[in-house]
């Protein structure tokens, strides 16, 4: 039965009982009330009526007596009416009483007796009234006293009897009522007790039934395990509400069991995942730092195999051809057993197949003896084998093979797969790294190889240079030897020998003499110039003119000496040729720069005409070519007073054996036909007086001719007297042909000899000795004839330097400040510059910077003269463009060493 129903029934019963009891009580009390009311109404009415009858009777009696007593015949009407009313009232009361007592026979009998008595009484009264009316007072009194009184007593007695009766009835009714009340109380108590017992039993039954169900639920729930949701107890399903709870609980238990089992599964898989991850992580950390494939393989196997309980392992990596796989590491391999094959082609064997298919191969139940896994105690064949490919970029780059005594569990397989899936990039990184390392080392090797090659080349160059020098030396020696031979020949031919000797000595004497002359002359020039400038202003105009004259004469003298020197040098074969590729434009620029001022000064036209077919370059000695052109042009300007001077350049021809023809055409005095050969001879001029008229040494053409021959060319002249001359220089590319040059030199020497023979010789033996000495003296060829420009404002320094350098046969040029130096550099060939730093107008730094701005002077050696121990100044010098520096006061030996080094070309 449902709990609800039970409750309804139980509590409903209680309610019904309570209602019944209440109805009973209500009914009982209602009855009681009715009884009481009845008693009150009935009995009191009867008593009241009895009392009314008594009073009526008395009243009638009093009225009758009054009537009699008054004894008048005149009857008082009022008394009569009152007696009548009393009679009426009594009759009504009797009637009512009679009605009321109909159910009470005793009372009814009394009432009947009363009725009778009263009727008799009022008949007596009436008889009396009648007697009064007739005036018979005495009879009336007797009747009244006799009949009436008796009657009245009887009535009163009856009335008393009636009242007693009624009171007794009333008492009876009261007694009944009390009795009924007691009964009611008793009944109520009884029913209350019954009701209480009933309610208690209902409650007891209900509670027992409910608690029984609850206990059942509780007992089941108590049996729930504390830490597991597996195999939960089920509840019996009853038909009440607890049945529903049980159903719900059972459903919950099922859900919990499901959940628990799911969770367990999940946990297990999580643990497995964790295991795989941990092992994988460990492995990854361990193999991460491997830089070499083999080390990686070994590390990989030794760390992986124990984790999957493998007893054998081999690791294969693809070879460079990408078609085969070689074993690079093994685990538990045994050297003496044929454990593992070293190399597999793609598709060969299981390893090769695995690589070819990129599929895992698993073999269970490996046959006996397939692989023997050995330990110290014995050997056995593993039962399962797994071969796994390792890929990178979808290509198999390696294969892993493992064997063990039991099957590989799915978990172990998972670990293997995961590891093999992810070490591809690692392997790739390592191969890349190895490749980079290899390339790096290769590049290092190549770099070093390059360096060795370059050094070897340098060495070879050095050796070649040495060999070259040796060859030169050899040549020189050969020449010397041939000279010696010649001397022997000369010995044999005494006269010839004398001539040759004197010729040689003459050239050398000339050369040395010029130097000896030049040294004091330079001083003279410098000093006369200083005088002429008259900086201090203490010279008179005339004295300044004198000084200028000294200077210009000195200059003429110097030129003469220079020319003699040049000629002597050319003739003595001391001039060396330094050929280079010359730009025609450069030559043109040089000529223009040199002679434009002269042409303007002399008022002559000066044209340079270059044939468009003329080659743009020529390979020859720059300095010598310029010297020849300078000589030719100087001559032309010298001998031309009006008209023009033209330099034309034409392409050479095969017949003339030249590459370029330079022609100097003037409109000057010209040369007579018969004297045209003579002019090339040294110390010759067209006529002896020309010198006075035109100045000059007359050596220019001789030098030009010698030089042109030195360069492999020649000079011709065409001239008509008084109309002009044309000097042409035919010049080929300079050929570094020693024999040809030698022959030219020999030719030159021969001519020279002729000339010397004709020339008067005034050299005494003593002089010769002196000259010899001076020759053997420390004549430094490196410094000889080098042009040194000293830039210094301090004359004492200039003097000291000049004399020291001229002793080395150097040509000293002097400039007082930077501006002058730049001017001099622009039109003079200077080999080296000695630059003082502290100067007026333009100091050394500025001067050097300006000089370096000129491209042609980029490599000109400039030695800065700095104050001692001025480190900052030195840096400044180098920055400004100095090649080297030396501190003042100058150590002459150091300076000469320095100059020697920097004039090397």
């Amino acid at each position, binding site marked *: 039965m449902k709990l609800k129903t039970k409750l309804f029934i139980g509590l409903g019963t209680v309610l019904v009982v309570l209602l019944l009891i209440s109805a009973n009580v209500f009914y009982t009390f209602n009855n009681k009330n009715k009884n009481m009311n009845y008693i009150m109404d009935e009995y009191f009415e009867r008593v009241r009526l009895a009392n009314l009858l008594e009073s009526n009777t008395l009243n009638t009696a009093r009225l009758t007596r009054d009537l009699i007593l008054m004894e008048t015949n005149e009857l008082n009407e009022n008394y009569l009416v009152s007696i009548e009313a009393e009679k009426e009232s009594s009759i009504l009361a009797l009637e009512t009483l009679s009605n009321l007592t109909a159910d009470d026979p005793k009372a009814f009998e009394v009432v009947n007796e009363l009725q009778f008595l009263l009727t008799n009484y009022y008949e007596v009264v009436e008889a009396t009234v009648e007697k009064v009316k007739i005036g018979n007072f005495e009879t009336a009194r007797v009747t009244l006293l006799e009949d009436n009184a008796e009657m009245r007593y009887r009535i009163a007695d009856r009335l008393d009897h009636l009242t007693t009766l009624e009171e007794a009835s009333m008492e009876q009714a009261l007694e009944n009522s009390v009795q009924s009340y007691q009964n009611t109380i008793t009944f109520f108590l009884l029913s209350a007790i019954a009701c209480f017992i009933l309610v208690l039993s209902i409650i007891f039954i209900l509670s027992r039934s409910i608690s029984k169900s609850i206990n059942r639920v509780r007992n089941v729930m108590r049996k729930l395990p504390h830490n597991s949701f597996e195999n939960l107890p089920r509840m019996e399903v009853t038909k009440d509400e607890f049945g529903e709870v049980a159903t719900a609980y059972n459903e919950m238990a099922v859900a919990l069991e499901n959940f628990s089992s799911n969770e367990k599964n999940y946990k297990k898989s999580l643990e497995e995942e964790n295991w795989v991850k941990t092992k994988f992580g460990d492995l990854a950390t361990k193999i991460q730092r491997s830089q070499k494939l083999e080390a990686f393989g070994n590390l990989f196997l030794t760390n992986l195999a124990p984790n999957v309980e493998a007893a054998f392992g081999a690791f294969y990596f693809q070879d460079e051809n990408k078609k085969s796989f070689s074993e690079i590491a093994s685990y538990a391999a045994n050297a003496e057993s044929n454990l593992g094959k070293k190399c597999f082609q793609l598709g060969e064997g299981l390893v090769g197949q695995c690589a070819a298919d990129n599929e895992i191969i698993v073999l269970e139940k490996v046959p006996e003896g397939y692989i023997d896994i050995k330990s110290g105690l014995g050997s056995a064949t593993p039962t399962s084998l797994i071969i796994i490919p390792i890929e990178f970029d979808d290509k198999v780059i390696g294969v892993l093979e493992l064997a063990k005594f039991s099957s590989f569990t799915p978990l172990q397989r998972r670990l293997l797969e995961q590891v093999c899936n992810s070490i591809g990039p690692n392997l790739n990184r390592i191969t890349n790294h190895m490749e980079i*390392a290899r390339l790096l080392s290769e590049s290092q090797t190549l770099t*070093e190889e390059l360096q*060795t090659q370059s050094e*070897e080349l340098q060495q070879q160059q050095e050796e070649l240079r040495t060999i070259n020098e040796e060859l030169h030396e050899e040549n020189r020696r050969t020449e010397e030897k041939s000279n010696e031979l010649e001397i022997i020949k000369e010995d044999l031919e005494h006269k010839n020998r004398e001539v040759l000797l004197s010729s040689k000595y003459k050239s050398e004497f000339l050369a040395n003499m010029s130097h000896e002359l030049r040294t004091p002359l330079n001083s003279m020039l410098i000093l006369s110039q200083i005088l002429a400038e008259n900086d201090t202003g203490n010279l008179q105009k005339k004295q300044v003119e004198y000084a200028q004259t000294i200077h210009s004469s000195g200059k003429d003298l110097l030129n003469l000496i220079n020319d003699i020197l040049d000629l002597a040098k050319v003739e003595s074969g001391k001039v060396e040729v330094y050929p280079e590729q010359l730009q025609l434009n450069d030559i043109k620029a040089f000529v223009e720069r040199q002679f434009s001022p002269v042409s303007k000064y002399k008022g002559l036209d000066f044209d340079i005409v270059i044939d468009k077919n003329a080659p743009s370059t020529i390979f020859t000695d720059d300095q010598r070519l310029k010297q020849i052109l300078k000589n030719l042009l100087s001559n032309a300007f010298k001998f031309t007073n009006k008209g023009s001077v033209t330099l034309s350049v034409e392409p050479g021809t095969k017949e003339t054996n030249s590459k370029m023809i330079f022609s100097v055409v003037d409109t000057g005095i010209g040369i007579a036909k018969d004297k045209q050969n003579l002019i090339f001879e040294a110390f010759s001029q067209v006529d002896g007086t020309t010198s006075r008229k035109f100045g000059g040494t007359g050596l220019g053409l001789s030098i030009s001719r010698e030089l042109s021959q030195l360069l492999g060319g020649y000079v011709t002249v065409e001239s008509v007297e008084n109309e002009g001359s044309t000097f042409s220089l035919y010049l080929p590319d300079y050929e570094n042909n020693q024999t040809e040059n030698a022959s030219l030199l020999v030719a030159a020497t021969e001519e020279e000899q002729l000339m010397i023979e004709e020339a008067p010789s005034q050299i005494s033996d003593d002089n010769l000795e002196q000259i010899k000495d001076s020759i053997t003296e420390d004549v430094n060829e490196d410094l000889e004839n080098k042009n040194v420009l000293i830039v210094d404002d301090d004359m004492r320094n200039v003097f000291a330097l000049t004399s020291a350098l001229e002793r080395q046969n150097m040509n000293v040029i002097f400039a007082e400040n930077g501006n002058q130096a730049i001017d001099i550099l622009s039109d003079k060939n200077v080999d080296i510059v000695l630059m003082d730093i502290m100067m007026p107008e333009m100091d050394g730094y500025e001067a050097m910077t300006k000089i370096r701005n000129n491209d042609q002077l980029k490599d000109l050696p400039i030695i800065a003269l700095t104050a001692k121990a001025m480190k900052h100044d030195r840096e400044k010098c180098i920055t400004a463009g100095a090649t080297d520096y030396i501190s003042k006061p100058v150590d002459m030996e*150091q300076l000469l060493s320095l100059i*020697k*080094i920097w004039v*090397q070309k």
Partner: protein
Amino acid sequence: MYRQYGYDFRNYAYSSLKRRIHYYTQRLNIENISELQGKILYDPKLMEGLSNVLSITVTEMFRDPSFFGAFRSSVIPYLKDVGHIRIWHAGCASGEEVYSMAILLHEAGLYEKSIIYATDINEQILEKAKEGKFPLKKMQQYTKNYLASGGTKEFSKYYSCDEKFATIHSFLKENIVFAHHNLATDHSFNEFHIIICRNVIIYFNKQLKERVFQLFYESLTEGGYLGLGSKESLIGSSYSDKILEVDANNKLLKKGH
């Protein structure tokens, strides 16, 4: 050759060896190497010639000026605290770099307490190195190098010239010991604060390089410096983490940390 004369060129760089021998055969007008081999085994002069051909002696004063600049700024301060400075120039050739080092030390005021051991395999070149004579023309480049290396004194103070050669002043030769030493076969002979070995190991193969590095490592005092040629490095050697580069551009390395 090794058995006959004791020369060990077996671990020289193969390509260079090949070129030099080819060059030597050409120079001697010999057809092939076998012929050369036969001749060399019977003619000690030819052996000496080959040995000279094989030893490349290209060098300059203050070669790679920045190296000497770096030496000035990085190593000289270290040397100032050293009592007696020992320097080893391995493969000094004609001595240009040795004298450069002498000049550096002289300018730093350290030359008095220094001793420079200059060694080479080539006896002939050692003789040349002792002379300290260099062609005039080359001195131009050397001066430039000196200035570029941060030299601030007068370079011309260190030499005097005759017609063909500039000779290093003898005061710079006082503390230099020239000696024969073969990096391929000989052992260490002292402990040094500085070892300079520039453009020598480029002629060696890997194996010999390793030997030389070991030799240097053993011969260097802790914290000592090693100077290599501009194209040389310890890359690929097992000593690359024992002798560390302190100036990678100028190939200045230091033993220890």
